[in-house]
């Protein structure tokens, strides 16, 4: 089924690369990406230790603008990961990596995150996108990028030895967002007491900046002593209590419901049918939060194959455009600058709840005009290629006759490609 294949390339993938064959069995193509190992685990992205060392060196050297080592790491990581998105033959897996990265947002709005965001993707998210959700939650919550972004690195138990007679104290930020955004959500009816108590559980989860290889470190002297109760769960003392709490939250029914809704909204529809949410939720419940099983369930849902109705976000859109023309000539496009210009700067969501995931959030009039203007600029790279052939290669049976006609009738190759890239069917997935 040609139509199903083109549908899958957009819905589960990042847009077609014309050099690659259209999959014969679209569902098998998507499933294989889940059952086979991630080809990008070994990408040369600087580690969290590299990022922390860079932050340390920047702090010592007080670099001139443009010479920051942490910013250099950010640029290298962004380049490597965006280049991978443009070239990957496992785009469904990459979409899942982006999805979970956005679910557990760390943002460059907090400057220190710059040197760590790429490492966060590679170390906390990617290894777990087809694994257990609880393992991802643990990896995320211990990662220096998250500990810095949501302030837990400096959180100190008020009655701990490190409290220094009250000079330093508790910071609830990570605990609150973990409950509200990462796991159970307010639907679980946790209370402020639960937030404070969970924040106390997470005291001591910090970063050792001064080690030869800096990274996560549990600091017993900063930990709030005693026994804690979060959402009715009595938790062990010390670091084990935090691990226990995270596992409880990750496997909570409210978490499964929240994750199922979010996955269905991302891959199926802005307002997904209740039945699809229930099915994904059931898989998460029955498998103990197996994200690979949930991803396979998505592929198997009828609703996933029915509409072509999700609007591509700028990141998704730009990558799809680049994949269509790749390999590009010189000069290479500055993708991070383009994403910033289109309103979705990489790893720079405004708040911990990440980028929104509905068409209305991305289809503002000026946002749409910028997308059109960029598409027109980008279309100048078409060279000697035929825009009508590109249109058919990109969309196959999803291409509307009126779009193909307009592309064929355009006054130049560039105008023809502009019309393809700005057509509603190319903007959707």
């Amino acid at each position, binding site marked *: 089924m040609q139509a199903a294949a083109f549908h899958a390339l957009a819905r589960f993938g990042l847009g077609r690369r014309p050099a690659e064959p259209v999959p014969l069995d679209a569902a098998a193509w998507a499933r294989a990406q889940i059952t086979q190992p991630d080809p990008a685990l070994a990408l040369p992205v600087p580690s969290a230790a590299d990022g922390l060392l860079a932050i340390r060196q920047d702090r010592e050297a007080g670099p001139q603008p443009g010479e920051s080592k942490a910013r250099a790491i950010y640029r290298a990581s962004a380049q490597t990961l965006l280049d991978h998105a443009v070239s990957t033959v496992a785009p469904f897996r990459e979409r899942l990596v982006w999805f979970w990265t956005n679910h557990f947002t760390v943002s460059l709005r907090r400057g220190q995150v710059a040197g760590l965001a790429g490492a966060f993707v590679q170390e906390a998210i990617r290894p777990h996108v087809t694994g257990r959700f609880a393992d991802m939650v643990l990896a995320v919550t211990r990662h220096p990028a998250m500990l810095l972004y949501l302030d837990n690195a400096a959180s100190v138990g008020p009655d701990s030895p490190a409290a220094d007679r009250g000079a330093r104290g508790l910071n609830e930020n990570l605990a609150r967002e973990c409950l509200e955004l990462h796991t159970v959500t307010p639907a679980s009816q946790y209370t402020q007491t639960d937030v404070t108590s969970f924040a106390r559980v997470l005291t001591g989860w910090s970063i050792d900046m001064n080690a030869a290889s800096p990274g996560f470190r549990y600091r017993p002297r900063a930990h709030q002593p005693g026994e804690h109760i979060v959402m009715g769960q009595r938790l062990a003392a010390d670091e084990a209590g935090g691990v226990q709490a995270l596992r409880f939250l990750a496997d909570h029914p409210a978490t499964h419901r929240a994750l199922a809704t979010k996955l269905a909204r991302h891959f199926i529809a802005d307002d997904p049918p209740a039945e699809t949410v229930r099915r994904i939720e059931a898989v998460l419940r029955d498998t103990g939060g197996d994200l690979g099983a949930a991803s396979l369930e998505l592929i198997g849902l009828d609703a996933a194959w029915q509409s072509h109705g999700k*609007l591509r976000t700028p990141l998704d859109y730009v990558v799809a455009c680049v994949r269509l023309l790749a390999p590009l000539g*010189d*000069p290479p496009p500055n993708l991070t600058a383009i994403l910033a*210009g289109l309103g979705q700067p990489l790893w720079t969501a405004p708040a911990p709840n990440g980028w929104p995931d509905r*068409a*209305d959030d991305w*289809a*503002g*009039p*000026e*946002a*749409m*005009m*910028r997308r*059109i*203007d*960029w598409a*027109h*600029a980008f279309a*100048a*790279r078409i060279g*000697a290629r*035929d*825009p009508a052939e590109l249109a058919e290669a990109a969309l196959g049976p999803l291409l509307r006759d*009126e*779009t193909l006609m*307009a592309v064929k*009738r*355009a*006054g*130049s*190759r*560039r*105008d*023809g490609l*502009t*019309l393809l890239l*700005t*057509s*509603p069917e190319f*903007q959707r997935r």
Partner: protein
Amino acid sequence: MPALTRRGAVLGLAGLLSAGPNALALAAAPTERRFVVVNLRGALDGLAAVAPYGDPALAGLRRELMAPPIGEPDGLLDLGGFFGLHPALPNLHALYAAGEMAIVHAVAGPYRARSHFVAQDCLESGTDHRMSSGWLGRAVAAMPDRRGRGDALAVGVALPLLLRGSNAVDNWAPRGFASPPAHLYQTIAELNAADRVTGPAVAEGLRGRGFTAAILAGSEEPKDRFAFPALATAAGEMLRAEDGPRIAALELGGWDTHAQQVNRLAGPLRQLDTGMAALKAALGSVWKQSCVLVMTEFGRTARANGTRGTDHGTATVAFILGGAVEGGVVRGQWPGLGPDALLENRDLMPTGDLRSVAKGLLSAHLRLPIGSLDAVFPNSRDVEPMRRLIRT
């Protein structure tokens, strides 16, 4: 003067830049003459731009497309008794009257393609097939007293095929993303109209940016820093500078007037007209040693089609303007518009070769030796350079 992007650097020729920006100022300018090529992408209707009102067959072919007669409000501007310039071209008319613009009518390139994409490739390559370089780029490389870099300037976000073939081409565009021309916005809005999300967003976005219905219909032009007159001014200022480029290429679209041509052609013609006036003003004192060639990939059908427009044709006009031009004349051999005179009973018959025009300008204006003209235009030995285009 706007800053240049060093095309040489992005093409991996960064070594050329190691001398630093001052070297540019110190290098001897290759020529005091300036040469600009304006590519009208989309196929200008030559019979509308320079109407042969003296040809008795014209009205029978396209009465609904014709501008009012000379002397009437918004009427044709006379070019000496047979041809009339489109009323949206008053500045070009003034140049013609001052002897600073010549027109070559019934010209075409050495190809008979009616596909924009194929024909534009051929026009820019200067041959009957697509090459990996363009005739203007090869001309820059063949200039006898070139500096070797910064000799030429491509205005726009991409380096056009026309200027490829030389290392000495810079690329300049205003910062930010260039807006598509109004006619393209219009088609984009139409293709999105039925979409419940993108349709209203595009419509509202265009309104928010001041695109009125009149602008989208092509009868009024938008004002922005990417508009053609603004680009022409920027190019003129760079060309005027003593250490600036000597050659420049600009583009202007919006010519593909398949429907409602009377409304849709006026806007782009006004852009061309005010753009050329802006270029002259910006060139200032070097205007007198400047020459501009305005060309398009092919003309349009002699007859109006069923939607008050014209379809893809063959021969059309070229404009040659500048202080160095021997103007005030319409050159070329008029083939007539009678039924036997049209090519395939539909297009204006080509009687001249655009390569002949370009060769005439390269040899007389840029002083390219005859031998290198054949390298610039491969397999064109039998195409004679057109004479008397440039004042001596």
